[in-house]
């Protein structure tokens, strides 16, 4: 057993919260730059330029890329030969989030009760996803998720006999309904299969993959490219002002499902799709 202290986990989460919020993911920034080269429309080009400038200012001035520094979503891949010493895992992660959001001057956007709406003041609790994997390390990914885009995400339970055309239409409808409010150009995470909750988890986790990295499955890779093409033909464009860049990337994850169904979840993310990871 390799021992990892809860204190180490806290420190790592804290640093990742700050880094993810001030430093735009390289793959996202590169995709915005490529989109700028392709765009013809003036307003679309201007907005993409603003986004590139915004990312540069954020990094230089250590300011959050976006004022919605999100709900903190924390993925932990825990090696089964790890022994966590000290505090328990959830508490160490939440202490790390609280610490990072305070030290990084990040916005605290979490309310205790969805109905009473009292702010917890710490941006905790985080949404924590853990998986046990082989090995003796812990890989931690912190993905702050803004709600302008989160509010536009959807799940539909299709019949098992649904055609790929119907599924594509649903995904395109989700994008059309987003309009400018989800802050296009978007990144879409799509979860196909599993169960109701599994498809949503897949859709969110799909956002973790760098958008310039191909889907390892040949058919899914083709589907991702087709969807991206169709979405970018919608002429929604940066901030809904029209143009060729409505989405920067489409990432799909799948899971085996039941003979009676085909869950499809679409997690909508914005041009400030954020994330930072570290293995300890």
């Amino acid at each position, binding site marked *: 057993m390799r021992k990892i202290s809860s204190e180490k986990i806290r420190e790592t989460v804290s640093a990742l919260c700050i880094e993810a919020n001030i430093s735009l993911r390289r793959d996202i920034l590169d995709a915005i730059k490529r989109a700028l080269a392709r765009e013809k429309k003036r307003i679309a080009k201007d907005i993409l330029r603003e986004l590139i400038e*915004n990312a540069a200012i954020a990094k230089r001035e250590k300011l959050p890329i976006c004022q919605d520094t999100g709900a903190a979503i924390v993925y932990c891949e825990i090696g089964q030969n790890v022994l966590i010493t000290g505090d328990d895992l959830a508490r160490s992660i939440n202490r790390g989030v609280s610490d990072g959001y305070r030290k990084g001057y990040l916005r605290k956007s979490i309310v205790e009760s969805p109905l009473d709406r009292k702010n917890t003041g710490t941006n905790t609790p985080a949404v924590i996803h853990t998986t046990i994997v082989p090995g003796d390390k812990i890989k931690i990914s912190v993905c702050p998720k803004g709600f302008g885009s989160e509010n536009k995400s959807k799940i539909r339970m299709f019949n098992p006999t649904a055609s790929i055309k119907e599924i594509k239409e649903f995904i395109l409808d989700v994008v059309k309904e987003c309009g400018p409010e989800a802050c296009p150009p978007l990144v879409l995470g799509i979860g196909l299969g599993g169960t109701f909750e599994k498809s949503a988890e897949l859709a969110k986790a799909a956002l973790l993959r760098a958008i310039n990295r191909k889907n390892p499955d040949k058919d899914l890779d083709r589907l991702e490219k087709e969807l991206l093409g169709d979405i970018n033909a919608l002429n929604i464009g940066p901030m809904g002002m029209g143009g060729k860049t409505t989405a920067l990337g489409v990432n799909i994850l799948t899971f085996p499902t039941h003979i009676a169904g085909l869950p499809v979840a679409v997690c909508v993310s914005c041009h400030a799709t954020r994330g930072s990871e570290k293995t300890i």
Partner: protein
Amino acid sequence: MIRLSLPLDKEKRIKLKAGQRILLSGRLYTARDMAHKNLVDMVNKHKPLPVDLKGEVLYYCGPTPPPPGRPIGSCGPTTSSRMDGFTLPLLKLGLCGMIGKGGRSKEVRRALKSFKAVYFVATGGAGALLAQKVERMSVVAFRELGTEAMHELYVKDFPVIVAIDTKGRDIYEK
């Protein structure tokens, strides 16, 4: 690019056209979901509001906390449509402009026309860039709401686009 000072002059306001790009300088008040709910509750109970909205512009924004030595943190716009249901009573009090992101309801568009008010959009997710345009910030109401409190901002050359003008023309209407 047109430069306008705040509060907005009525003559200049009614000449604005949807799609025009504007640099605003002067005073804005931030208000988002909870501040809107509180303001409209006060209106309904015939209580005086913490700030006089006559002639003012609201910015739908919940900034990040200011790091030491800065007036404000990151401060981009939030989704405006969530404020649609609260907008008419505020226009009745003389509010003459709003800044946010995304489209508005038909009701708001109609109200903007009848009250000769303007709806602007700023680039969503460009919070670090927009922070460079804010010179001063102070809390004027609902301090207990934290980021959702009403803040008074003084901005310089704050970039916006006219999304719905006083004639009811809307850039998102296709």
